[in-house]
């Protein structure tokens, strides 16, 4: 199972910082980020593009949040 970053309920820009930290830790591979607002989802997608990661999937969850899967070869 891919590693997860749980950024639900956190103010901007903490979801971005947590995701960025995970990117720096893993350097490559695949992991998931859980967020609960569209703003956070957009910010994470923008960060991924900046850092050369691919948004493989952005899945809506039952509680109206998102699980974003990020990958870097």
């Amino acid at each position, binding site marked *: 199972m891919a590693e997860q970053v749980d950024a*639900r*309920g956190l103010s*901007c*820009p*903490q979801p*971005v*910082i947590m995701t960025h930290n995970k990117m720096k830790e893993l350097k490559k591979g695949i992991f998931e980020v859980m967020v*609960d607002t*569209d703003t956070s989802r*957009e910010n994470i997608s923008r960060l991924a593009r900046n850092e050369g990661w691919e948004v493989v999937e952005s899945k809506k969850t039952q509680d109206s949040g998102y699980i974003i899967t990020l990958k870097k070869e």
Partner: protein
Amino acid sequence: MSNLKTFFGTRWGIISVGVCIGILAALLQKWGNPPNMGICVACFERDIAGALGLHRVAVVQYIRPEIIGFVLGSLIAAYIFKEFRPRVGSAPIVRFILGFFAMIGALVFLGCPWRALLRLAGGDGNAILGLAGLASGVAVGVLFLKNGYSLGRNQMTYTSVGWILPLIMLSLFAFLVFAPLMGDGGKSGPIFFSEKGPGSMHASIAVSLMVGLLIGFFAQRTRFCTMGAIRDIILIRNFHLASGLFALLIAAFVNNIILGQFHPGFAKQPVAHTNHLWNFLGMSLSGLAFALAGGCPGRQLFLAGEGDGDAAIFVLGMIFGAGFSHTFSLASSPAGVGFYGPHAVIIGLLVCCYIGLTMRERIK
């Protein structure tokens, strides 16, 4: 609808909104708002505090429909695009204090980040010090964030909680329209309305409200945030939000030239003073408080409109801070910095550092 949603998330989406705000702000000035103050979230919330009698400075009292429009426009956008998420519970008392000191800093400089840009677009060189201070404050906030600063998680809550600030705004609108006299058993204000000075200068209620609604709607969609723009440049070298900010500045500048509202210089600028040190430090305090709270004053209004109860608390902290500022001789005026303004800025910086250093729970 889906195409529209995608557009707002693009670079061109946020540039369009920046241009829209820049043009409308310059026009609001033409239509009656104070000079270099087509829009100022801090000043307008201060005017609201005055209208409610939370301070008694007679020249800055008016219920600004733009603020009401920002919240309600964001609320409408959030409902249309299914983004209304009532949430609350992320250190509300700290957010109140951050709002309080953000306002104190803004009133030492005399403007929020939007007005800093509009002042610069109108030729006021003092705004450069304010913007430099803002960037410095945000940079310090980013340092705290990088070292684990967090206000903790919020929680989903009842829809009615998300409606509290929009309902307060609707109540303010009723106060504006019906203008009741409720002081001294109904013989005098509040509600107070300035008869001279910046508070007496305003566009018509309908125009101000419409502009507010429009900006609130589009800013909610694009996540327009002046603090976020600076923070993203420092934190992740991303210029997405900053492109909206530059668009605002250029659009307002061009429009000011066209409308004859550009008057370059430092001295005798409207609703401004020339104390460079406190222009810088005032806005440093605001920038730090905005960074710790996760958004500039405009963004806090838009967040509150989409159901964020913590942002609503920040807004109330700002309004309370405005009342306090003017009652305790903290706020500046064109004559210079308020007598106790510098003391309050230093205390505010210390309080923000205390918050930034001590709230560092590592969130897993």
